[in-house]
């Protein structure tokens, strides 16, 4: 779907490049682009859209080279939902979605028809003839999603789609993202600084920090790794000789007050018990650590604190 090699983007006048030698290949599906504000997520999306020229390196999006003359046509195959409000306040949702459809290359009649359909798809069928100035934040986000979908793109870029939404609005928006991929078969790149959003919908994850890729991989792979993450507690504190052999079980992340935070080598849940028996220790508690994706993110962003 997307691949790039040693991609570098330098804004004019900036001391440092916004993207520093990024290399990556992304498969079809929902890709979560995660990172703190200023990590380079929006810059990467704009570069992939062909709005910013790479200062070094290159890549391909849907088979079209970045910076090539076909980049303008490529934008007709991509939908983009920007982070900021990009709505014409005095126009109705229907008028503007039809307008964006026409700008993507649809003839006026098709653009009008599809504006109705896509606004129904995002749940704005009743409100589509009202000026967007009277819309709530959630409705505005859905208009932005509708304009990104109106021309049936092969790929959509969603930049912080849950910005400013309440928990219910966030849930609805994320359900829509899943629906877009499941029902329309559209590839999705979702940029967010909210781990919960990405975790909920993405099947691939790319973590960005300060213009670099800190980590990337499939969510299933990350979850598999996390499912081996356990906390062990022994009846009596381990002696020095026993502690020295704990790494036989896997990578030790933390040892504190008789608790051992480990990433097990072996997926077999009985392995820690066998190890304890063979080393004369009594294992009394094994706690799986399922909800620690945030630690993966933090480790990727701050490896020095890992």
């Amino acid at each position: 779907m997307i691949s790039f090699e040693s991609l570098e983007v330098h804004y004019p006048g900036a001391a440092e490049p916004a993207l520093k030698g990024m290399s990556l290949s992304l498969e079809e599906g929902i890709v979560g682009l995660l990172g703190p504000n200023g990590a380079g997520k929006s810059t990467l999306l704009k570069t992939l859209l062909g709005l910013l020229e790479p200062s070094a390196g290159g890549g391909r999006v849907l088979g079209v080279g970045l910076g090539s003359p076909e980049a303008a046509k490529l934008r007709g195959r991509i939908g983009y939902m920007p982070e900021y409000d990009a709505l014409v306040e005095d126009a109705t949702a229907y008028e503007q979605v039809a307008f964006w459809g026409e700008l993507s290359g649809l003839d006026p009649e098709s653009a009008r028809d599809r504006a109705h359909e896509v606004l129904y798809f995002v749940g704005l069928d009743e409100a589509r003839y009202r000026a967007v100035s009277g819309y709530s934040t959630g409705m505005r986000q859905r208009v932005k999603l509708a304009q990104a979908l109106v021309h049936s793109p092969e790929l959509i870029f969603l930049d912080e789609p849950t910005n400013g939404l309440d928990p219910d609005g966030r849930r609805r928006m994320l359900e829509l993202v899943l629906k877009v991929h499941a029902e329309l078969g559209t590839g999705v790149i979702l940029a967010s600084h909210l781990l919960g959003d990405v975790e909920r919908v993405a099947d691939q994850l790319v973590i960005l920090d300060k213009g670099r890729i800190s980590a990337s991989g499939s969510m299933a792979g990350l979850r598999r790794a996390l499912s081996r993450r356990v906390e062990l507690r022994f009846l009596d504190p381990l002696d020095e000789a026993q502690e020295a052999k704990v790494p036989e079980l896997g990578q030790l992340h933390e040892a504190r007050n008789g608790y051992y935070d480990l990433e097990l080598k072996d997926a077999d849940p009985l392995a820690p018990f066998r190890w304890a028996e063979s080393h004369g220790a009594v294992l009394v508690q094994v706690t799986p650590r399922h909800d620690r994706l945030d630690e993966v993110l933090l480790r990727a962003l701050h490896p020095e604190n890992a």
Partner: protein
Amino acid sequence: MPIYAPSLPPKPDLSSGRPPAMVIARFDLQRVLRQKMGRFFGFIFTMMLLWRLGYVYIYYLKDQNAVIGKMMAAASPVLAQGAEWHADMLGGWLTYLLWFLVALIGGGLVARDTLYRVRPLMYAHPVKPSDYWIAKVCLAALVPFAILAPFALLPWLLSVGLTGLHGVMWASAPLRLLPVALIIALLMGAVASGASSLASTPRAGVGWVLGVVLGLEAVGGMLYGLLGSGSWMAVSPMALAAEWPKLLCGSTTGVFGWAPALIGTAAHLSLWTLILKARTRPSEAVL
């Protein structure tokens, strides 16, 4: 039951659309037509047009009616037709009011997109920067041209209809007045959209257009007064718009000649288009 199917139909043909510049201009025109001031100015310009048409009609009637003929004969020093009379078809209050209307409409054309941050999203579609600025200049020019063209054509059509090609209006009137209307409209469109790109809100855009037009008129007047040459008035777009009807109709009462008019008009068209291009390029919009 929903009126429209809940699932989207197969992928549409994306190659059958209209040129992006036309799509942008049409969308902006719909926005302009929704504004109430359009109706107000529509009324004003319609009244002015009816006045001009009535004028031509009465000119014809003077040949048919003795009473009106005597009245017209008495007023002939005032109403004498000639180059000046024809130039006035597109001059005077008409262009002053048009500048005001163009400031109100054109001032917000680009500034509104800046305020709502629509431009980066536009460039995320298959839209080139040239599509954008061409759409803005053309729309800002289309409105004054649509108002000026009836003033250039309808009195002539009425005159031809009533008295044939040797009536009140010159037979060649449209050949003179239509190019004048086009030049004035392009000048107004370029200045309005260029000045609008300097503003971040529509209201500030209106201020920028009026400031540029009135400010340059004042500068031109000062230079004229100080240096004693009417050619300096060509720095003012307002003076240029007032001068072109006189030049093309052959009036001798103009403030400056062909060379300053051509240079001034070309300079304004280039300058304001360049400003518009520079202020709306994608990197500017994205950053």
